[in-house]
């Protein structure tokens, strides 16, 4: 059913929003505030470990070499130690480039037909907005720690101060809130506007983006338009981490929607494409050194083969070979 993926995702978000609204005005809010946080967290942690262990059980017998740079060979041939590493440190460097700067996405190219001829060029927009979104998301998650620890660690205050450096409006507009919105909007519009991408986009692609957009939007609404009572919010969050949760009254409806989205994200995360957060570290094309010519890698499930080497052959027939006048390696 091509073309209905977007509709289904929007519908899922609407159902989530409406059920959050329904919960907000009933005693069920106890469930959302006290039981669901723990359930969601346990599913997130458990699911994350389950996925990683499942990946780690798949054998990767051979080094998967991607031709991103000259591999290390003869000393007078210049090699690319980060693009085609042959050592552990090289692999760590390549992984750091990948995790922090999205190195392979930087290689993204686009093709266009110019005068009946395909022309390839670099396409950095996806890399730029992808990086913008991920770093903003990290800053936002770290800033949220102010609700979970008391007293607030100085580095969290410092981060918030830098993020709100320009002191635009009251309460201060955080730059990461703007950039996360810009990143997500680009990633979403990209799937909408490019026909080829729209063709391959599935429910899970749209849902991930819409859910994150929902979280960001409700967060911004709570900060700038329908202020949530931060005293209650922090009491609740501290209640969770000290295992003495208490459902507060009158924190505002938007807060319920925000929480429902966040818990949905936590539960869905390990079983979705978002698991690339853990998966990136287990990518064989990124985490295996290109040392096929330096070391012999044995396939772990090779059946034991009985071999008869030339040395053994010579030992067995040495006398006969000598008599026949055949050349021998060992006399």
């Amino acid at each position, binding site marked *: 059913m091509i073309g209905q993926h977007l509709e289904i995702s929007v519908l899922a978000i609407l159902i989530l929003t409406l059920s959050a609204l329904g919960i907000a005005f009933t005693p069920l809010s106890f469930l959302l505030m006290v039981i669901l946080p723990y359930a969601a967290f346990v599913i*997130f*942690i458990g699911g*994350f*470990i389950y996925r*990683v*262990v499942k990946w*780690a*059980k*798949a*054998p*990767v017998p051979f080094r998967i070499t991607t031709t991103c740079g000259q591999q290390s060979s003869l000393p007078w041939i210049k090699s690319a130690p980060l693009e085609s590493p042959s050592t552990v440190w090289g692999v760590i460097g390549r992984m750091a480039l990948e995790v922090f700067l999205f190195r392979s996405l930087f290689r993204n190219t686009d093709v266009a037909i110019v005068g009946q001829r395909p022309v390839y060029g670099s396409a950095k927009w996806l890399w730029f907005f992808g990086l913008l979104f991920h770093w903003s998301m990290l800053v936002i998650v770290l800033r949220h*720690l*102010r*609700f*979970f*620890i*008391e*007293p*607030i*660690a100085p580095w*969290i*205050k410092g981060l*918030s*101060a830098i993020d709100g450096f320009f*002191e635009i*409006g*009251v*309460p*201060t507009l955080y730059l990461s809130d703007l950039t996360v919105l810009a990143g997500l909007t680009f990633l979403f519009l990209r799937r909408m506007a490019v026909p080829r991408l729209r063709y391959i986009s599935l429910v899970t692609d749209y849902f991930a983006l819409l859910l994150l957009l929902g979280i960001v939007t409700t967060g911004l609404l709570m900060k700038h338009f329908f*202020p*949530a*009572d*931060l*005293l209650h*919010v*922090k*009491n609740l*969050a*501290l209640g969770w*981490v*000290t*295992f*003495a949760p208490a459902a507060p009254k*009158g924190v*505002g409806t938007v807060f319920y929607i925000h929480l429902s989205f966040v818990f949905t994200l936590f539960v869905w995360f390990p079983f979705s494409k978002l698991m690339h957060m*853990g998966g990136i*570290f*287990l990518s064989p094309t990124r985490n295996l050194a290109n040392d096929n010519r330096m070391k012999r890698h044995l396939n*772990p499930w090779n059946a034991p083969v009985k071999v008869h080497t030339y040395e053994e052959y010579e030992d067995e027939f040495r006398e006969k070979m000598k008599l026949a006048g055949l050349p021998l390696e060992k006399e």
Partner: protein
Amino acid sequence: MKLYNRGMVIAGIVVFLIVATFPLWYGRGKAVPPPDLKLDTPAIQGLKEKLCVETAPYMRANHMKLLTVWRDDVVRKGKRTYTAMDGRVHQISLTGTCLGCHSNKKQFCDRCHDYSGAKPACWSCHIIPEEVR
């Protein structure tokens, strides 16, 4: 089923667990009492009806927006009175009206702001009464 690269995979999972549970172990599970706001200044005790400019729940969530409106009204429009939802008229003044009652910034404003990590810019222009005296 064998776990390949057991050492690296387990190390990775341990790092993930430590980072993901940061809020749980950072405070060592100690319960933190919510901030205790002191509403016992002489000015408040002298009030017949203990009521802020607007209702307390509204003020808790919206005081910063109200203060922004007040600032714009005074500085940009020259309007110096504010009519509350219940019809009472207040003089628009942080030092006179707000701090007239809440003269204990350290036991009132700061308690919540420190707790929720909100750092208002009020005091980069306005004076703090306690510090002047």
